[in-house]
């Protein structure tokens, strides 16, 4: 009875996984970074499935072969001290598996942290992505435009996202293009990614940040370089410039739709990098900062 259940539930699990495979975002990558993580995930799933199957098989053998009902009443299980060879095997095999996975982990981590292979020569497009409760602001210093809750970038060109936050720690995540990274108030973190096919991709804050967290999403759109340039041009001819007052209003807690501006907030509210980074990196500037101690949080980076 119980064995049937074990078999039944593992089959159920397997079919659910297989049935659900096709559309799973993380396993449906659209760029080299997400491809790397997807293949790492598949390799680890297969390796791990192998271990699970061995353990379950051994367990079933033990339970079937050595259950009391199968044995004579007078059977006395022996006292077994242990066997050095057996114990060496149960140490060495896991060590080998872990070594293999460690190498894969370190290698792939270096890979996803750097500009993808084959794209090193190109100038990356730099986009500052900053979060505020509960929105994402995208600033393009090079193109001199800024958007809210959506981001456009060209395909087949490395994009460098520079992340920071006006408020709680958030996590910038476009599952089909790259893994996530935290955005924090006092420093910049970076994500390098390339989109290899055009399309709209789900992006969100993955790190819990309060009441509006569930809806803290954005759309990431990859389009051909020509279309991207056209889009930038259109903004410059149609959108309003972003003023400091306007930006401070945008920072107020709440939700906003998609918005577009010319100019970026970086000119009056620089990102926390270099000399504007949190002062624990720059002890010499302590004095300036202590004078602002009474300022409210959202004004902090507008100095």
């Amino acid at each position: 009875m119980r064995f049937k259940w074990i078999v039944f539930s593992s089959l159920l699990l397997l079919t659910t996984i297989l049935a659900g495979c096709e559309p799973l975002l993380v396993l449906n990558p659209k760029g080299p970074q997400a491809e790397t993580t997807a293949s790492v995930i598949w390799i680890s799933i297969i390796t791990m499935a192998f271990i699970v199957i061995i353990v379950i098989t051994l367990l079933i053998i033990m339970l079937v072969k050595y259950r009391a009902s199968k044995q004579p009443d007078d059977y006395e299980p022996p006292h077994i001290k242990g066997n050095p060879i057996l114990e060496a095997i149960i140490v060495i095999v896991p060590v080998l598996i872990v070594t293999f996975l460690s190498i894969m982990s370190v290698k792939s981590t270096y890979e996803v942290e750097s500009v993808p292979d084959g794209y090193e020569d190109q100038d990356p497009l730099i986009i500052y992505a900053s979060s505020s409760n509960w929105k994402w602001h995208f600033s393009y210093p090079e193109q001199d435009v800024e958007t809210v809750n959506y981001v456009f970038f060209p395909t087949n060109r490395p994009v460098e996202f520079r992340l920071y936050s006006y408020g709680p720690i958030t996590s910038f995540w476009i599952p089909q293009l790259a893994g996530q990274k935290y955005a924090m108030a006092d420093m910049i973190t970076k994500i390098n990614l390339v989109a290899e096919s055009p399309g709209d991709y789900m992006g969100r804050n993955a790190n819990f940040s309060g009441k509006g967290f569930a809806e803290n999403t954005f759309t990431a759109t990859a389009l051909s370089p020509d279309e991207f340039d056209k889009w930038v041009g259109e903004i410059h001819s149609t959108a309003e410039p972003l003023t400091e007052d306007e930006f401070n209003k945008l920072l107020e807690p709440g939700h906003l739709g998609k918005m577009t501006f010319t100019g970026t907030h970086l000119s009056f509210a620089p990102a926390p990098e270099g000399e504007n980074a949190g002062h624990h990196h720059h002890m010499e500037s302590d004095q300036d900062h202590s004078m602002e101690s009474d300022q409210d949080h959202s004004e902090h980076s507008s100095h």
Partner: protein
Amino acid sequence: MEFFERFAIPNASPLIYASMVAIGLTVVAIVIGLTYFKKWGYLWKEWLTTVDHKRIGIMYIISALLMLFRGGVDAVMMRLQTAVPDNSFLDAQHYNEVFTTHGVVMIMFMAMAFIIGMMNFVVPLQIGARDVAFPRLNAISFWLYFTGAMLFNISFVIGGSPDAGWTNYFPLAGTDFSETVGINYYMWALQISGIGTLMTGINFIVTIIKMRAPGMKLMKMPMFTWASLITNAIIVFAFPVLTIALLMGTFDRQFGTHFFASTNGGMDMLWANLFWVWGHPEVYILILPAFGVYSEVISTFSGRNLYGYKSMVASMVLISFMSFLVWVHHFFTMGHGALVNGIFSITTMAIAVPTGIKIFNWLLTMWKGKIRFTVPMLYSVGFIPLFTIGGVTGVMLAIASADYQYHNTMFLVAHFHNVIIPGVVFAMLAGLTYWWPKMFGFMLNERIGKWGFWFLSIGFCLAFFPMYITGLDGQARRMYTYSAETGFGPLNMVSFIGAGLMAIAFILIVYNVYYSFRHSPRNVGQDPWNARSLEWATPNPVPHYNFAVDPVVNSSEAFWDAKKNGHVLFPEKIKKIHMPNNSGLPIILAGFFFIFGFSFVFSIWVGVIIAALGIIGCLAYRSFEKDPGHYISREEILETEKKLGGASNEN
């Protein structure tokens, strides 16, 4: 009136008012019941003032079950809210409070209480002692834990619950983003119960090092005692970190410091680091005692000695050491580069090796055994495959690059429930069923117990396996709702059904206690499971003094040796026994701590000062108090042993 406004709930809802009424009625019912049946004196003399490790253990376990109920209700509410897209059963704020309290209650007040309760009951018996090293301190530990738990649990009806997740990351948990007193409750409830836990750690290390029966060398201790020793060593190293982090958090929130702020020299990442420097060892504080329970249960019901005793001990020592070297894997995504992540990725995966050794040792314990499928054994057998799945998904999460995709998703939620439920919860239910006759002198019904096991296991699989899939599909954790287009709906519905089955399992387990109390025979004898370790050399239920005569031991399976190999456990004659006196001081001290914590939460400084004086007063009183303990006479012991049919009545 203004004074009372601070106690109002910031996000009131009919659900909360209903709970208020329910709490009020329950309290009234308990008070009336105790008065009507004239049980106040009994309660005070036998339980509230007790320093007996067994009764303290049982009180811990009862509290743990209450907290399991509270945390379970939170869990069902969350699964109900997310069962269908765009549900409006809970609003965002309420959902945030519910998952925060669910996490804190389950880890700090359910799992911790369960393992400490189990250690309290079992460890002195397993080492042949009559109590722990510091019985009075042990009572204080329990009452401080209980105070913390109650303080935390009143938050949702007085002043509002914490809402920044059980991880409580700053700056979200700072006053800028969480203005209610909720997080003050978090700080003080954990602080007070954490002090209790720290003292438990010291108490049990001393007990196990100093109070073992003659002949019980360290390498002849039963495996649960080994697990407890190592667990308490981790507690003593890890909990001070939490104490300090909570204190710094309190200062930030209530005295305007900036330890964890992102301005003025503060560092928000510091909280995350301190939290997980405590938090990851905490995971092993929970799981090692569970491993100890499984070792006892699997060995007993396979009829075999535990395979690879030395490697079991070595792997636990290794795990305890390595548990302090992996905390960064909780935030691979915080932006420290590939080098740091690579190192912590390797240390994390390395822990899988000693854990794997233990799994194989349990399998080899069954090898050539004679396996009896009792309820404790079913939980242990269910644990092996389910925990293995949880373990390997942990290894998957340890791969830093892949973690960038799993982090903060339902995949992670599935993983840690997959280790904590089959690991800790199954173990505690196995241990509770296994040692139940020792506690109460009757057995729990096997049939109802098995139904409970199957409901819990199948419910668990249905509730958590779908989360692996939705996690990979981009469902972030802690979202109070999602839209229909995401496609998360059907699998979340499956999760909700699983949660429902688990709730039924809980009801069955509680019903089993009632049913067995009414119907189980009371003459279970000394050894109902055909067990092996020393605690079974006492009668069931265990008399107040545990062992009428100090046992003499020569292996980790002293009781088995006595049964099968003619080992003489009790070579000496019965003599009068010295025991510690009961004391009302621990509960009074805890009462002052409650006032202290509650007043601090609301910044009522008069209350804080009065309570602090009360605490100091209690400590001073204890310093000057003369308490020589008392003796149990030889005649009384002989009579008790005769009545219980104990092992040493031939003396």
